[in-house]
């Protein structure tokens, strides 16, 4: 249903995404991993048409995504929801309004400007919020919520779009582990219950392994790994992160275990001086 061929993006001389190709035949939960700057965000942004591609083709159920213009392009964006690392909600607006923004692509500009959202949309928004367990915050301002709650509002907005596909750009990178888990679980549940395709950029191997059906690894703009999470050995990870033999998986983990030796060293120093 999604076919990407030779997708390329160049910023000046810097090639952010370099002839990436892959196809997805049925709704899957896909994780994209790679070091910072590997081109993960750029790829998702091109698929959603937030950024224009330099070359290549993206086809979704027969639609030639990259050539869409104007209304057709906005329709595509409304079919292809996007979730961001920083949530990208309107912080000063209440939660329901933020969720209702998911329908903007479909409603007339004038009506939305005067806040004329149909009643059933409002009900649906509440239902979605309830499903994500944050219905009681519906009337609060988005900025008053915790990070994990805000990300769930963003997911609610995405669901409101009734999208065929959800793109998530490092959805848990700014969350603490507790919230990260809630959010990843929500995404997984949506994938399973609604059968929507989910493509998520992730920055830790363990998250990708835990939640995804398929993992794509990128390095310097190229796809260097594509397979089931079980195939993601330490060797494969080394290739993706371009690390040497001293690579240890923890270097990409959110758990900051590596600080321990340091603290011990400091203690030894301190004892030496005392």
């Amino acid at each position, binding site marked *: 249903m999604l076919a990407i061929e030779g997708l390329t993006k160049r910023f000046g001389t810097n090639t952010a995404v370099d002839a990436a190709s892959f196809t997805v035949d049925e709704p899957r939960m896909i994780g994209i991993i790679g070091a910072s700057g590997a081109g993960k965000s750029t790829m998702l942004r091109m698929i959603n048409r937030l950024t224009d591609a330099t070359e290549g083709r993206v086809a979704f159920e027969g639609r030639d995504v990259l050539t869409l213009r104007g209304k057709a392009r906005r329709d595509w964006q409304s079919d292809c929801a996007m979730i961001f690392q920083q949530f*990208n909600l309107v912080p000063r607006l209440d939660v329901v309004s933020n969720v209702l923004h998911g329908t903007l692509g479909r409603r007339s500009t004038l009506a939305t400007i005067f806040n004329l959202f149909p009643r059933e949309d409002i009900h649906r928004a509440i239902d979605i919020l309830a499903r994500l367990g944050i219905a009681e915050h519906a009337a609060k301002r988005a900025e008053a919520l915790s990070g994990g709650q805000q990300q769930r509002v963003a997911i609610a907005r995405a669901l409101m779009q009734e999208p065929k596909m959800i793109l998530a750009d490092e959805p848990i990178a700014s969350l603490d582990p507790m919230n990260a888990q809630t959010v990843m679980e929500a995404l997984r549940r949506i994938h399973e219950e609604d059968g929507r395709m989910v493509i998520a950029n992730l920055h830790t191997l363990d998250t990708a392994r835990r939640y995804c059906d398929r993992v794509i690894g990128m390095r310097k703009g190229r796809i260097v790994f594509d397979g089931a999470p079980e195939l993601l050995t330490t060797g494969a990870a080394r290739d993706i992160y371009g690390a040497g033999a001293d690579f240890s998986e923890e270097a990409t983990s959110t758990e900051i275990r590596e600080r321990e030796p340091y603290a011990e060293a400091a203690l030894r120093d301190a004892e030496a001086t005392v």
Partner: protein
Amino acid sequence: MAYVDSDFRAHYFEMLRRKRLYSGIVLAIFVLLLASGFLLANDRNAGGFLQGMPQVLDFPADVVADAAPKVAELPAHLVTYFPALLETVNIAAVSTLAGGVLAIFVSLLSTRGLARFPRPIPVFRRFMDLCRAIPEIVIALILIFVLGGGPVPAMIAIAFHTIGALGKLFSEVNENADLKPVEGLSSVGASWMQRMWLGVVPQVAPNWLSYALLRFEINVRASAILGFVGAGGIGYELKNTMSWGQGKFDEAAAIFILLFLTIVVFDQLSSAVRNRLTHGRAVL
């Protein structure tokens, strides 16, 4: 550790010396400019500063001397001139409103990252500069020539200036707006108007409003002044009574009191509202 690279010291003393020199020069230039400018202005003036100082209060004294015995008529004058005051305030309000709305569009169109069309950004910016640079009185006088006297020329003139002044402040606010919500809205397929209205306006509206209130206060003053050149309102009345002099100072005093109270009231009102907007709960 006892070893200190003497370079750091030399470097620091060098910097200290240079800084002292520069600030000395800047200070000297400033004092020189101020002193020579003052002497020049003093010389070109009809009356000198020192001779004039003892007489500073003569004019107010005249006004009070003329108005005080007729203080009983003051309330009547206040009533007489109230409609003119209303006109002045209306001029300010309409021009702030109209200029503010246009400023919103111009500022959005000239902010990088928000502009509908990125290319003409410099055009809109120059346009704002131009609006700001032309003093209201110039536009008002020309429009009075074409449109005849009355409030409309003043309104257009002030609105024009307001576009430039508010446009600049607004676009500074816009530049600090968080683009993430806008991007979020783009990703759902929102149009430009929707992105601006739902993504930008909620963030910046309190600041816009705060600046617009400040401008309104300034515009009340500006519209009173334009009355001096025939644009109607309280300024026109004030000028006529003031220049009549002895004999109508009681009316002048009444108008002055009206004008002054209005300015103070709006000043206090707008700073109270602005304080609430920036510190307290926002209204939107």
